[in-house]
């Protein structure tokens, strides 16, 4: 016969402020198999835990029920406590009389007390039927995968590599660097973005523990913490990267043009291109969609021969390449190649995109002089379309009045309710850079309010006011296109409660940060969830900011929510620390609360297989017939298969039939 001990927690006034704790304790004492019932101000305190341990050591109890708060935060604490006292940690059950009692029935203390009694009785019913269970351990692959080669991914990969773990850094573009590589300078120190980023790119690319897979995308991921298998598609570059020296000769000779994404479409690049001057790896890629197949040089065909000279007629890119890295005779597979890797943990650092100006019909998106802030970043960057000269797009003239408009698509229920967090600061940065260079330029900034909450940020903002940059409180309502490519700004100033208006030469929209569309596809491959503002959901907003619901998969940077460079780097290093933990331990613990198939009962119908959200079930042959089998390290113990099995062949340890029926019986008594 089980000897159940019940311990009721006051949780200060959290529980006792509503529920009659003494009454619950008295009631618990009357339940079958309960040998002792106690109460304490804080059961999770040292003295509270000691009370339980002492009862176990005295041989008084061999099943423990704590009626307190949520098992999500406190079950591990009590399980550890009873294990220390020599009891199997699964001989423990929690009754959540706080979240399900006092917190939700504060208006009805009597009812809440009665409910607490029922919840406690239910837990006791289950505890009487609990059986000891054992955790299992599986070995891990000592390697990590970092998806995304921006400043977040680079930092995460470097941190892991410096801890001695083999790390794969996968980047979909031909170069690592991400959006930070597109920025001119960075707030609040006005550091040149490339100057601080490039050394990190070099360090990551040349690190002996990092294998950079640029121009590659994650095709598929299977497995579980410690033992993931990933398929990486290395996209076709049409250039032999083992020979390419990054000289750029092919890009000069290539006659085909395509919009340059790196310059946000404000200039053209060639079909054969190197992403940007500091690219890492600095390798050329042929964008086959825009390639003209010069000289009839379709990929995988033999060249025509010049009848006079007898020499083959090659395409300009082939001729230009002295390193012989380009040969259009080779039948390159347009699908590229698949590389299969095995890793123990995965960090997702896929970054963000900014909204296009086309979404904002009231902001004259048809005007070339209305640009997004990222476009302005390229305009003022030395590697941008104007080589750093501030010229407005319509006529390449220097503007005299510039307008900045905040919260375009952020804090706006038509688009995104979230604050994009970095816009206030980068607008101020751009305004400062321009005002410092051209003090006579009029810069008008329109804000709902200025959010400058970071180290050194407010000082930076006040400094902008000191430079003579004009700040207006209130969002711009609309822009009107004027005949001379100017824009009339129609705004409101809530400080003076008056409408304001003026003509502007260049208008900059701080468009919202959002998750790129292709991130949704990746989420499906990795089983990631989304939060309310449609970024990847972390395990816990405060206490699990880098973890996800899937063990072994972690988040860093803007894919988890908008953040600036310091926060992205911090999160990346935190994610690396978390991702290194299983690698460093060499094995991962598999909790015992998982499902198991009794093969002798299983009919092999296979209903459970598509239902399993973790792809943990497969078919094996048992006694010459097909039977389901659950991979214990992939199982999360959700119980879907157990409840669906028509033969009752699947048992979920820790939630067995006898235990659940005992709970129902207690609740309906």
């Amino acid at each position: 016969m089980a000897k159940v001990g019940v311990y009721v927690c006051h949780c200060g006034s959290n529980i006792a402020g509503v529920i009659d704790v003494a009454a619950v304790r008295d009631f618990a004492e009357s339940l079958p198999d309960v040998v002792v019932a106690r109460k304490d101000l804080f059961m999770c305190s040292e003295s509270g835990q000691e009370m339980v341990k002492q009862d176990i050591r005295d041989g008084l109890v061999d099943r423990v029920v704590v009626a307190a708060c949520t098992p999500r935060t406190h079950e591990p604490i009590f399980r550890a406590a009873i294990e220390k006292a020599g009891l199997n940690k699964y001989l423990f059950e929690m009754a959540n009389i706080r979240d399900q009692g006092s917190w939700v029935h504060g208006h009805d203390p009597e009812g809440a007390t009665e409910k607490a009694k029922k919840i406690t009785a239910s837990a006791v019913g289950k505890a009487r039927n609990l059986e000891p269970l054992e955790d299992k351990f599986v070995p891990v692959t000592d390697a990590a995968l970092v998806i995304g080669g921006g400043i977040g991914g680079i930092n995460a990969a470097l941190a892991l590599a410096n801890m001695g773990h083999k790390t794969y850094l996968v980047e979909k573009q031909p170069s690592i660097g991400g959006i930070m590589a597109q920025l001119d300078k960075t707030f609040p120190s006005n550091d040149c973005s490339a100057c601080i980023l490039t050394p990190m790119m070099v360090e990551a690319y040349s690190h002996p523990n990092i294998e950079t897979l640029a121009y590659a995308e994650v095709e598929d991921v299977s497995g579980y913490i410690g033992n993931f298998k990933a398929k990486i598609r290395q996209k076709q570059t049409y250039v032999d990267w083992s020979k390419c020296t990054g000289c750029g000769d092919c890009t000069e000779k290539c006659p085909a043009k395509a919009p340059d994404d790196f310059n946000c479409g404000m200039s053209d690049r060639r079909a054969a291109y190197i992403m940007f001057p500091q690219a890492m790896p600095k390798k050329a890629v042929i964008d086959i969609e825009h390639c003209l197949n010069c000289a009839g040089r379709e990929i995988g065909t033999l060249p025509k021969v010049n009848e006079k000279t007898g020499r083959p007629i090659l395409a300009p890119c082939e001729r230009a390449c002295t390193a012989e890295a380009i040969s259009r005779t080779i039948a390159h597979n347009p699908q590229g190649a698949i590389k299969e890797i095995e890793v123990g943990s995965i960090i997702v650092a896929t970054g963000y995109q900014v909204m296009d100006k086309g979404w904002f019909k009231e902001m004259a998106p048809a005007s070339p002089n209305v640009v997004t802030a990222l476009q302005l970043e390229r305009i003022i960057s030395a590697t941008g379309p104007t080589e750093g000269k501030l010229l407005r797009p319509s006529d390449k003239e220097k503007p005299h009045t510039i307008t900045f408009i905040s919260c375009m698509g952020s804090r706006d229920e038509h688009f995104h309710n979230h604050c994009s967090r970095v816009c206030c600061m980068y607008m101020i940065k751009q305004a400062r850079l321009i005002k410092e260079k051209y003090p006579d330029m009029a810069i008008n900034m329109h804000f709902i309010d200025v959010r400058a909450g970071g180290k050194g940020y407010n000082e930076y903002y006040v400094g902008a006011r000191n430079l003579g940059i004009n700040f207006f409180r209130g969002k711009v309502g609309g822009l009107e296109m004027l005949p001379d490519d100017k824009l009339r700004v129609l705004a409101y100033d809530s400080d003076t409660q008056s409408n304001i208006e003026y003509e502007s030469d260049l208008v900059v929209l701080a468009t919202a940060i959002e998750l790129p569309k292709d991130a949704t596809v990746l989420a499906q491959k990795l089983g990631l969830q989304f939060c309310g503002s449609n970024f990847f959901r972390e395990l816990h907003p405060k206490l699990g900011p880098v973890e996800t619901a899937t063990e072994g998969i972690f988040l860093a940077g803007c894919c988890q929510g908008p953040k600036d460079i310091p926060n992205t780097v911090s999160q990346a290093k935190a994610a690396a620390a978390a991702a290194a933990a299983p690698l460093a331990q060499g094995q991962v613990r598999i909790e015992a609360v998982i499902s198991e198939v009794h093969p002798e009962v299983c009919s092999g119908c296979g209903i459970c297989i598509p239902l399993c959200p973790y792809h943990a079930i497969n078919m094996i042959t048992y006694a010459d017939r097909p039977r389901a089998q659950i991979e214990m390290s992939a199982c999360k113990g959700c119980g879907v298969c157990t409840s669906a099995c028509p033969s009752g062949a699947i048992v979920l340890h820790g939630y067995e039939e006898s235990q659940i029926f005992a709970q129902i019986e207690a609740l309906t008594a």
Partner: protein
Amino acid sequence: MIIDQKKIDEAISTIVGYGGHGMLNCVQCGACSAVCPGVKAGFPLLCRNLIRHLMYGQLEEIIEDSSSWGCQACNRCTEVCPQGVRPQEVVFAFRRYQANQLAFSTSSVTSQMNLYETGHAVYTDPREARKRVGLPEQTPTSAFDDQAKKEIQTLINNSPMGELGLF
């Protein structure tokens, strides 16, 4: 309201030139106006709102407003300002601008004439009241001291006030 950078620059250089050095630090939080007795008394263009209009280059538009003369120079605004704007100095700078443009309010002209003639900005004839309570009719101040009056007038005549040619 039309926003014109030239007017903004002119307003800022004028106010800074007259001593309102901290004006550009202002973030429009309104703490100054919250403690300003002039604002409480109903003067619309003091502290935050005065600075806001100046930041928009509205110098000429508000030149005739008499609010600035309602400033009691208590300096509480300077104590509470989180940005070191010293709003009172901005108010005084605006006053200096107004005075130099001879844009005085009636009340302030009276005070200044009183100051010039009696040495008191606020002056009422005290003699009858003093006699009633048994004091000497004449106060022991500049009002009844020709030498002191003369010295005060000399000081005023030789100050920027004298250059305005009011007296």
